[in-house]
């Protein structure tokens, strides 16, 4: 089975637009909070210089990941992939998004209840799961982009 018109999918740099797209989430969801923190500290003449690890030490990265997963699931649902592929992709994105969000929930519950809580662990878990969600989202959007080009042939 040879793909018809696959030459239409020749690399042009519009395929790399998904790197720009994912950078928007990374920028607004991760870099912007740090910039705003530094701006606030400067405005109030505070000496604090928190890094990403301190800002997101309670697993907040999981919330950013969950929002990203939801937007990609929506794109997948609107696509013309068969229902099997849409279901498979949606389930995995939802699963990873929920797990990433669960890190934040667990961190809150542990702190509230006084059960042993390690911010180092929350940061590490939310960082790894956020990286996973970001990479899954990126590849899914690249696949969706290719599929749109194929269906337009």
């Amino acid at each position, binding site marked *: 089975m040879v*793909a018809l018109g696959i030459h239409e999918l*020749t*690399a042009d740099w519009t395929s790399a637009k998904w790197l720009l797209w994912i950078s928007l989430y990374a920028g607004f969801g991760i870099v912007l909070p740090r910039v705003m923190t530094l701006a606030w500290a400067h405005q109030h003449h505070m000496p604090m210089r928190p890094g990403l690890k301190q800002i997101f030490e309670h697993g907040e990265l999981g919330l950013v990941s969950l929002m990203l997963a939801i937007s990609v699931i929506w794109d997948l649902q609107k696509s013309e992939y068969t229902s099997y592929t849409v279901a498979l992709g949606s389930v995995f994105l939802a699963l990873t998004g929920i797990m990433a969000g669960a890190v934040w929930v667990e961190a809150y519950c542990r702190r509230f209840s006084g059960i042993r809580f390690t911010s180092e662990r929350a940061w590490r878990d939310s960082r*790894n799961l956020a990286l996973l969600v970001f*990479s899954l989202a990126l590849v899914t959007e690249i696949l969706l982009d290719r599929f749109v080009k194929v269906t337009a042939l």
Partner: protein
Amino acid sequence: MRLADPAAMLAYVSLLFGLLLVFFPISFPKIVLHNWQSARLTPIMILFTVSLNLGLYLKVTYQRSARPGILASACLGSVPVFVLAGLNLLLQATIAHTLAGDIRNAPARVDEEILAQTFFAMIAAIFAPFLLIRLGQQFHKNNS
């Protein structure tokens, strides 16, 4: 075993897949499709995912100075096989569904469906065993 342990490695595998798609948009999918047509794709994926899972598990047990469990190792070896075999059947159904309909450019769509399902199947095969191990550990902890 925490689910965040394999997450980073899985993210790198996923990113590698994505970069191959962006920088080799014709040759990489052709390799995948050629291997699928010659029935080599599933065995290659089984070999890759089982090796990766076992390597990840051994790395985590070494870092935590724990002994690798037999059940966990068996899970890591067998679950990817079942997941990939099952998703292969799903892919067959997808292809039949696409070709059965009167859809324009059906063969090209089928190629893209194969590529997408290969990606999701690989993710599932790497992740599912760790999910089961984690659920088993929770269940064991609740019962003890």
